[in-house]
């Protein structure tokens, strides 16, 4: 098994196989290592206010669906599939709560996060109508309130909410129907 390390660089597959057999220690270690990986994954892809929820949702999903990983196959694609599913889920949810503003405590936790924050999401905004992309950027990424965004863009507050809702829903749809465009 020379290439075992290549296929499973973090040893996550080995840990998950042990977890499927009911071993608590490797499972704890796996979850503890997945958490920062997921944090990074979602920071690039979601508004800051949705990141923590997405991480927790994904950990719960990994737990509930751990029997669907086939130990004879690599762990990475399975993990990526679940993370992506939860990403789409969260974008939809963020759209439903269009008016939720960023909590103070979550805006720019540290420099590294601020730089990479939602980089993938920002790129994806190019697929939306400019009016939608702009209010999503202002409210969900820059942390403006609905009223501030309305004043800045000239859209009415109601229209700002609608555009956030529709725009994030549309993004979720685009990501879902694209075969592995991250």
């Amino acid at each position, binding site marked *: 098994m020379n290439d075992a390390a290549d296929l499973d660089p973090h040893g996550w597959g080995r840990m998950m196989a042990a977890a499927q057999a009911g071993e608590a220690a490797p499972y704890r270690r796996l979850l*503890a290592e997945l958490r920062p990986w997921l944090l990074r994954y979602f920071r690039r892809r979601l508004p800051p206010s949705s990141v923590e929820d997405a991480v927790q949702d994904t950990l719960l999903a990994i737990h*509930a*669906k751990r*029997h669907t990983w*086939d130990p004879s196959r690599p762990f990475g694609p*399975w993990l990526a*599939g679940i993370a992506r599913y939860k990403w789409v889920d969260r974008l939809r949810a963020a759209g439903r709560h269009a008016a939720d503003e960023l909590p103070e405590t979550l805006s720019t936790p540290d420099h590294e996060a601020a730089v990479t924050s939602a980089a993938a999401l920002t790129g994806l905004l190019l697929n939306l109508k400019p009016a939608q992309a702009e209010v999503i950027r202002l409210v969900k990424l820059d942390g403006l309130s609905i009223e501030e965004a309305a004043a800045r863009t000239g859209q009415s507050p109601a229209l700002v909410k609608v555009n956030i809702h529709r725009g994030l829903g549309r993004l979720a749809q685009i990501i879902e129907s694209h*075969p592995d465009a991250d």
Partner: protein
Amino acid sequence: MPIDLHPADPLIDALVADLHPVQPRRWTREVALVAGLVFAEILIYAALRGLRPDMPQAMQSPMFWWKTLTMGSIASLAMAAALLSLDPAITRAPRLAWLWRGLALVVPLALASGWLIDAGASGAAALLARLDWRDGLDCLANVLLLSLAPLLVLARFVKHGASTRPERSALAAGLAAAGLGAFVFAFHCNHDDPLYVTIWYGGAVLGIAGMARLLLPRLLRW
């Protein structure tokens, strides 16, 4: 000397506390279960309502084989798509995308082929006679009935799995169950007219698949 590298996290603590051994899911086992169920349905249905009376002659007829093979292939392709889609690593894989495309092409073509073979050959009155609506409705009802057990089993598998495209998995499960129901019914039904098969079998299959697509996804969220 053990060092605690990971600070306590209440969620992780809870998940670890809830850990119990699980059996990794095997699609081969799932296929075997469905195959056993279909075989049992064929036997039970033959005992209750009998095989078609002209079975020996029918087995010589290409139309009988066209009918059973069409339903059988729709069922097998759809079941492969449904079961494969339950692994998050495969749901979005390019080769599964090809299977979806194949399904989207094969199902309508297979169902329409009966029509293409010879619907144009007779006038309207003859067409109606060929459609034999009394038998046709019986056929619809029976295919629906025979699809129920496979649909329940497949829905359970889909729920147990982790599809990242729940709508597609639901549609494929419905199509598979309907194809299996129609396959079982084909051993009883003595209509080999391709037009009849297209309309009644096709209608039943699409109807059941549509219902599954509408009703199942809300049960499949995870």
